[in-house]
């Protein structure tokens, strides 16, 4: 595959325009850290955004950051940490979606709408994506959204680009909302007999006013793989609830939460709590090194335990978002197993994405399910990329 790595906007525009004219499909990537996510793209040329890098404007007290799409996440995290801010949607430094241990680029995180454990309380990547400039499939540069935190001028195209996996436009510059990072965190850890008990605890406490901003369940076999001593040492399945905020507030809520839970609990403080939630966010370390097929499910939170019981064969799975997200490793990487997973999920409402699996399977199935009439999705694609040259097939089959 021919690799094109432009250093300027005009080169990017020119590359896309010439591909559009020649009807030549073009694979799009940031740093390639998520190359295993989605269906394989059939293209002779690949446009890398790695050369389009750097933070353009960062105004901590306006709560916005504007960067070129190819800016490494590390650079963004570092800049934010210096001002004690963060991306509240908690994108992971995950190695799940590709090879190597590169955390990827801001453009890639947004294109995948990748969010971490804080998603239910703070929103997803899409909720923090304020505006962009991009090149559509005709090689036209356009912009949408804005550079302020509140804006309803025109269609909310940032929402649409979030999760579009590079199939609608090549993002150039992106503006995201940033927020003060919480000063402290603690995790309340409750050993439980099984998923039903653990899940029930999460569902119950999430309905109280503790402002839990991480609610996960780990089966015993998964907890045993944790790098955090107290988690590993428990030898039991665990319900985990994270509290973040000012020291006074965290201590206060932690005590109240433990009292409300009733049964014996332990507390994990700063570094341990942080390490644990990084593992939950990044997933890989908690699951076997060799993964045949890994599914990411988004389901009604109250259905989490039921779905885990039906699909969590072998115990290699974990639950986040209070039951709303399941990561499930499956032994069989087959079309039939895909159908089975989707049937269970769709019966309860929600969707299943194959986030890691062999190329032949990713080619054979819809890695991302279609959630709207295919003809409408296809017309939306055509509105941005009428010749179908941008990442064809990566998100939806055939186009």
């Amino acid at each position: 595959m021919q690799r094109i790595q432009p250093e300027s906007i005009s080169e990017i525009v020119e590359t896309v325009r010439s591909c559009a004219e020649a009807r030549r499909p073009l694979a799009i990537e940031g740093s390639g850290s998520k190359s295993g996510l989605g269906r394989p793209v059939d293209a002779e040329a690949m446009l890398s955004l790695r050369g389009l890098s750097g933070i353009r404007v960062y105004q901590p007290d306006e709560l916005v950051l504007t960067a070129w799409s190819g800016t490494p996440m590390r650079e963004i995290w570092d800049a934010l940490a210096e001002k004690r801010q963060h991306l509240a949607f908690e994108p992971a430094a995950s190695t799940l979606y590709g090879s190597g241990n590169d955390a990827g680029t801001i453009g890639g995180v947004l294109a995948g709408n990748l969010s971490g454990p804080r998603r239910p309380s703070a929103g997803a990547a899409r909720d923090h994506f304020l505006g962009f400039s991009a090149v559509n499939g005709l090689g036209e540069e356009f912009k949408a959204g804005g550079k302020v935190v509140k804006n309803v001028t025109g269609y909310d195209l940032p929402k649409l680009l979030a999760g579009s996996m590079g199939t609608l436009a090549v993002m150039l510059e992106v503006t995201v909302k940033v927020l003060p990072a919480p000063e402290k965190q603690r995790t309340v850890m409750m050993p439980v007999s099984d998923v039903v008990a653990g899940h029930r605890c999460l569902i119950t406490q999430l309905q109280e006013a503790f402002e839990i901003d991480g609610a996960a369940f780990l089966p015993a076999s998964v907890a045993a793989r944790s790098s955090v001593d107290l988690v590993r040492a428990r030898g039991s399945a665990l319900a985990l609830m994270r509290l973040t905020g000012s020291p006074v507030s965290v201590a206060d809520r932690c005590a109240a939460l433990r009292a409300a839970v009733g049964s014996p609990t332990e507390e994990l403080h700063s570094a341990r709590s942080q390490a644990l939630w990084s593992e939950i966010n990044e997933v890989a370390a908690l699951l076997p090194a060799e993964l045949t097929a890994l599914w990411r499910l988004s389901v009604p939170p109250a259905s989490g335990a039921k779905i885990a019981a039906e699909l969590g064969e072998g115990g290699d799975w974990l639950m986040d978002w209070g039951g709303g997200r399941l990561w499930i490793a499956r032994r069989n990487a087959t079309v039939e197993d895909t159908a089975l997973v989707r049937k269970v999920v769709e019966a309860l409402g929600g969707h299943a994405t194959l986030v890691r699996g062999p190329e032949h399977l990713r080619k054979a199935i819809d890695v991302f399910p279609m959630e709207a009439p295919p003809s409408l999705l296809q017309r939306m694609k055509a509105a941005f990329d009428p010749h179908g040259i941008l990442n064809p097939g990566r998100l939806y089959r055939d186009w």
Partner: protein
Amino acid sequence: MLTMPALDEEAISAREQVAADLARLVAPASVIAAPAALKAYESDGLTAYRQPPLVAALPGNTAEVAAVLRYCHERKLKVVPRGSGTSLSGGALPLADGVLLGLGKLNRILEIDYDNRCAIVQPGVPNLAISHAVAERGFYYAPDPSSQIACSIGGNVAENSGGVHCLKYGLTTNNLLGLEVVLMDGDVMRVGGRHFDAAGYDLMGILTGSEGLLGVVTEVTVRLLRRPPTARALLAGFASNEAAGEAVAAIIAAGIIPAGMEMMDRPAVAAVEDFVHAGYPLEAEGLLIVELDGTVAEVDELMGHVQAIAQQKGATSLRVSQSEQERLTFWAGRKAAFPAVGRISPDYYCMDGTIPRSKLPLVLNRMAEMSQRFGLRVANVFHAGDGNLHPLILYDANKAGDLERAEQFGAEILKLCVEVGGVLTGEHGVGVEKRDLMPTMFSEVDLAQQMRLKCAFDPEQLLNPGKVFPTLHRCAELGAMHVSGGKLPFPDLPRF
């Protein structure tokens, strides 16, 4: 003068037939064709524009909505959806040749699901009714537009409405899980559900804030939040708007995101105090309301920080609410700001731009100059935390030329917002009001891209035409179809 899409004379002459046809699709009493009765729908909250619709249809369920849209699609009739008609941008302004589709009869709360922390409601349910329905269990629906007693959740979705608490809790779009939508051709589509986020294209994200141009919302699944144990508000007066603005920046720089942070200028304070008697300091040039919520310990701690910051920035008066009653009184003034201004002027025109907060002093000074130049007074209320300005321009519609001057003044303010790096609208939508200003913010290519997306949903542009986009292009002209070598790239796509 506002130009609307070319009139469909055929539709106008077929009015009685259309009414009769619609009466077979919805309950006959739910079709309104009498001119006197249609007057009730002639405008929304932007009362400067009035136009009775061809007919109004008030469907009672999704199937009826679908039937009406299918019929209009077949007859190529324009349709304007309407919730409660409180839009401040003319989004629900009827068309003389179009059917007004009122969603008010779809007003039931269908299900409350605490385990999944969501509620499923019909679009005509008033925003506040959701919070009321779940209050006994300590829950609420977070976005709280000041119009929340009246405005419908469907209208909120269409406008992506905000409220004074959206700094911390987000706009409508951040508080939705699912939608049922009827497309212009009558197809019913569900997006999302009780789970988070789309797997691919975020249809809910794009439908929210689409101002009724992409589809008609017939069911909404909203997230429910647990009400924080306590909330307290601080009322702080400052000798200048600059000082108040600096206090806002310093609070955020200190890592505090208040539940709400509102600002009013002296004219707004005077109008409100006279109306509500909230105890606002009349001598303040800039008044801040800062609300903090959370546990008692947390609120006490943060309130200490916020008070210290306000003092350091030279607050001339400081009051912290000592009871829930007092907190509500602080807010009562702010929430009544629009009607309060309505009392001191025969008419007022509410603007809604957003700016980077650091530009506030510049924008307020330029606005004061404009006020002189146009000879019209202006009062400012301001969602200070997120930079969303609501200048209220005072005018008298009975005075020749006043309305035109108010509109020009408003347009200049919005252009200024864009000039300093902000946007035309923070929460009220573009509608007809800001439609012709869109080119100050977007290039032709930007707008064509948005319009092509519209074409993907509604190729004949029958749904709420004349709103949002300054010029209507036929979809085929927008370059949405690029024929290469006689072959279309997606041969199986229905053509527009």
